[in-house]
């Protein structure tokens, strides 16, 4: 049943989320020292620096609870329950130690910027790879085919962050076509105006381009898929039926060749944020990735755990959506789920 399939996928998504939250809780406990011992030290040292003299243990525990949602003086199961319920029911991911702001505020401030570059990077990367792959397949064994194969294999072997650094060197430093960091120029006023939006686009070009290198490897997959489909019986019959060339290219070759790539695309979603951490660091692009990178540097545990949970949520939701839509793209999938 279709509803059965839905329920199963939904259950899997929920289970993944719960597991992630549990993992972050375990990580708090696995931190050097004890669950919150190190945090206490951090707070203590901050207070000492601020010139505070008295150390009140109760007050310390309250502070720890405020920052992490973990109440160190409670039994473990109560700790877990409270941690869990404050995340699920109150959407409270704790408070950043260094920024002293709620983790959710910090993350949601920056998520649109990260989404902006990563969504465009995926769209650009995958559309390019589908296009290039299809053209390579149609012109199989031509010069274009062999040259692009070599170039693509080369690009695939070079990590995207190397590409990013090369891009900065050539296009930002040597040519000064694009800025080499930041997300918007400080000289323009924020708002709905052309210079501001232009600045955003200019700042995003290089990060998007270097991240889209990740998806470009799909061109070789697409080429292989298309070549396979071109040899299928139904393609020959479609030609024999005198169908229009454009229909054969899109409905027959395109659709059947992209199908297996959709799975790759789904897995790619998960990779987007992990690559964002490095790309945003290279381009000092203040998105969630850079936030997380800085959190690691400053040992800002609540912020780290918060981003872990948010990243997982976004990935799980994206994969869930992809799962649901897969049935529309490939009718055989929902049928296959019955047999399980």
């Amino acid at each position, binding site marked *: 049943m279709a509803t059965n399939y839905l329920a199963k996928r939904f259950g899997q998504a929920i289970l993944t989320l719960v597991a992630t939250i549990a993992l972050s809780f375990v990580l708090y406990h696995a931190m050097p020292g004890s669950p919150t011992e190190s945090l206490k030290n951090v707070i203590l040292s901050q207070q000492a620096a601020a010139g505070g003299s008295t150390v009140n243990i109760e007050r310390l525990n309250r502070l720890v609870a405020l920052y992490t949602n973990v109440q160190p003086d409670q039994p473990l199961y109560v700790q877990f329950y409270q941690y869990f319920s404050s995340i699920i029911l109150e959407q409270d991911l704790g408070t950043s130690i260094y920024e002293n702001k709620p983790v959710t505020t910090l993350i949601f401030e920056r998520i649109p910027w990260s989404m902006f570059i990563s969504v465009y990077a995926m769209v650009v990367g995958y559309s390019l790879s589908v296009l290039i792959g299809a053209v390579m397949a149609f012109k199989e064994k031509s010069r274009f085919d062999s040259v692009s194969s070599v170039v693509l294999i080369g690009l695939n072997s070079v990590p995207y962050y190397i590409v990013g650094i090369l891009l900065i060197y050539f296009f930002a430093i040597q040519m000064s076509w694009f800025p080499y960091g930041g997300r918007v120029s400080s000289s323009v006023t924020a708002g709905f105006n052309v210079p501001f939006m232009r600045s955003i686009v200019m700042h995003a070009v290089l990060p998007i381009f270097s991240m889209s290198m990740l998806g470009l490897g799909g061109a070789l997959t697409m080429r292989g898929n298309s070549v396979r489909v071109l040899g299928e019986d139904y393609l020959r019959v479609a030609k024999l039926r*005198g169908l229009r060339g454009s229909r054969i290219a899109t409905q027959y070759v395109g659709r*059947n060749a992209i199908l297996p790539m959709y799975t790759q695309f789904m897995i790619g979603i998960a990779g987007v944020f992990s690559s964002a951490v490095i790309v945003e660091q290279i381009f000092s692009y203040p998105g969630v990735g850079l936030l997380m990178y800085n959190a690691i540097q400053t040992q800002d545990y609540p912020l780290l755990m918060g981003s872990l949970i948010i990243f997982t949520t976004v990935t799980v939701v994206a994969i869930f959506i992809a799962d649901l839509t897969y049935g529309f793209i490939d009718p055989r999938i929902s049928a296959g789920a019955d047999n399980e």
Partner: protein
Amino acid sequence: MSVRDEIFEIRNLDVSFELNRGASRVVRDVDLNIHREETLGIVGESGSGKSMLSSSLLNAVVEPGVCSGEVTYYPQDGDPISVLELSESELKRFRWEEVAMVFQGAMSSLNPVMRVRAHFRETLQDHNRDIPAGLERARELLESVYLDPDRVMDAYPHELSGGMKQRALIALSLILEPEVLVMDEPTAALDLLMQRSIVALLDDLQEEHDLTIVFITHDLPLLTKLADRLTVMYAFGIIENGTVDELLYNSSHPYTRALLAATPDLNVPVDEMHAIAGSKPDPVDRIEGCSYHPRCPIADEHCRSSEPPMATVNGTHESACFYHEKAREAVPLRGDSKQEGAVHE
């Protein structure tokens, strides 16, 4: 066969493929006439050029094969069409509107991500037909091939069985009301029962739609039930033509006779069935003289040096053998002694 005029006329047809080790000529200098509203059976062993010959009727020889010669199509009214000279756009119109083809591997002939209905619709649309009327016709066609139109139209190919797909494909091939239906081993992947029912179905459809059917198979017994005329191919050329009865009871080419003798029959003891000795020639080789001479029991110097022309045996019956009168004694059939065609069940 009320009207005895030609619908297809093939002259000097050659199909060749360029291979590294030389040109592979898979159809060699074939002449063939196909009569309007007949069922022509083309029979021959695997690799004898049957499929290539039939593909050339739609100028659909797979790349990188090259067709040369003349294939002329005579429409019911209007000027003859030279199929091999059609432009890309003319070919798109010609295919499926005049000549449709159902071929080997019908199992995978439908796009797996599209419903059966969409296959009908896109075919109608790309040939600029009236879609609602066409889909209504599609339902009738599906009914006439014993499928439930409501179920099948909304089904994806993977939801249909092999026999159902095959029948849906036959319905699809008739959607634009073609004059000629070319069937290249349409029953090869089906069980015997399904084969027989499709053959019976074709008989009905032919009567109903005034179709000319070209049926290609290596299953000789199947053809005898279906065809009006038979054409036997051996080694990339046609070696014998005639009505089913002429070929079954009076075949005059040693190869045809050997083929008949090799047909399995449960009623005949194994030692009376004869496989043909030797093996078929390589399509790259140039064959001197008669293509069958290396395997023929009555071949002589004449056969080795020159190629036998098509000779009339009597009436419509032709055989490409110098000694077609002698073939009957040289290659006896098991039916000859029993006064009963062993193949003709």
